[in-house]
């Protein structure tokens, strides 16, 4: 997720922590957090992924005035037939791997940039889903001083057909 400006905010961290069912006070209680080694509210380790909220072109978010592939009256609101299969995730592919390297821990007040660099791509034959096409992206999260805060490496996979259950 590329973002020119990813402001890290306390309420977003609180909502994110709730969404992963983590009630650690260090994610929402500034007074408590001050008394801990962290020295203040910090974000949970996987929070950087929510930079998606600040990527203006993120394709897994409905956008005003544009077709969305989820259901309305019908099972998909996309009227025209998509050009090719590439199913599996039904448009988004599936997430195969995610890696984070923490140079420092981020918190409210940080304003990050997220620069995405393409990585390797490779193919594999899957037993449960046909041909698998993997693609890697590297995202560098830098803070307001230009210092590297988090390096993320994600691997996505497109499957030939839905994964057999």
């Amino acid at each position, binding site marked *: 997720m590329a973002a020119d400006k990813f402001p890290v905010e306390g309420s977003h961290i609180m909502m994110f922590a709730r969404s992963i*069912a983590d009630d650690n006070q*260090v994610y929402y209680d500034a007074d408590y957090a001050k008394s801990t080694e962290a020295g203040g509210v910090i974000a*949970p380790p996987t929070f950087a992924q929510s930079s998606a909220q600040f990527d203006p072109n993120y394709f897994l978010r409905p956008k005003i005035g544009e077709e969305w592939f989820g259901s309305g009256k019908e099972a998909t609101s996309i009227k025209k037939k998509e050009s090719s299969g590439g199913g599996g995730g039904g448009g988004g592919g599936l997430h195969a791997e995610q890696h984070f390297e923490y140079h420092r*821990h981020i918190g409210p007040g940080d304003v990050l940039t997220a620069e995405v660099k393409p990585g390797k791509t490779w193919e594999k034959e899957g037993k449960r889903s046909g041909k698998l096409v993997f693609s890697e992206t590297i995202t560098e999260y830098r803070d307001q001083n230009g210092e590297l805060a988090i390096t993320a490496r994600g691997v996505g996979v497109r499957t030939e057909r839905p994964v057999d259950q």
Partner: protein
Amino acid sequence: MALSATSLKAGDTYTECLVEDLSRTQIVMYAGASGDYNPVHTDEKFTKEIAGYPSVFAHGMLTMGMTGRMLTNYVGDGRLTKYGVRFTSQVWPGDTLNSTATVVDVTDGIVNLSVETTNQDGALVLSGYAAARVD
């Protein structure tokens, strides 16, 4: 809170139950907070009729996030230096997940951990590693 290098040895484990009977609502909460609104996670009609899956399923990152909670409860806040995973099976509404960190080694103030999260049938849904600063 933080771990002490002298009290850790290879093979030590720490386990937490991440979630019992995962609800669709929890998945919706994750979609809203993370910004990943892929309908395969929240839209049963789309997921069954178009994507071809039996029901919506959790974001891999929800499992990674909850597994991260187990890790930070073990190593302390702000202590992780690395955390990476592979998603090995999908996680479905109704699943109960347990997660274990196992000490691989402790060197130069860093503990290296292997991480595994399994579902109620014992199937591995996530495998990975983490590294954290210890005292």
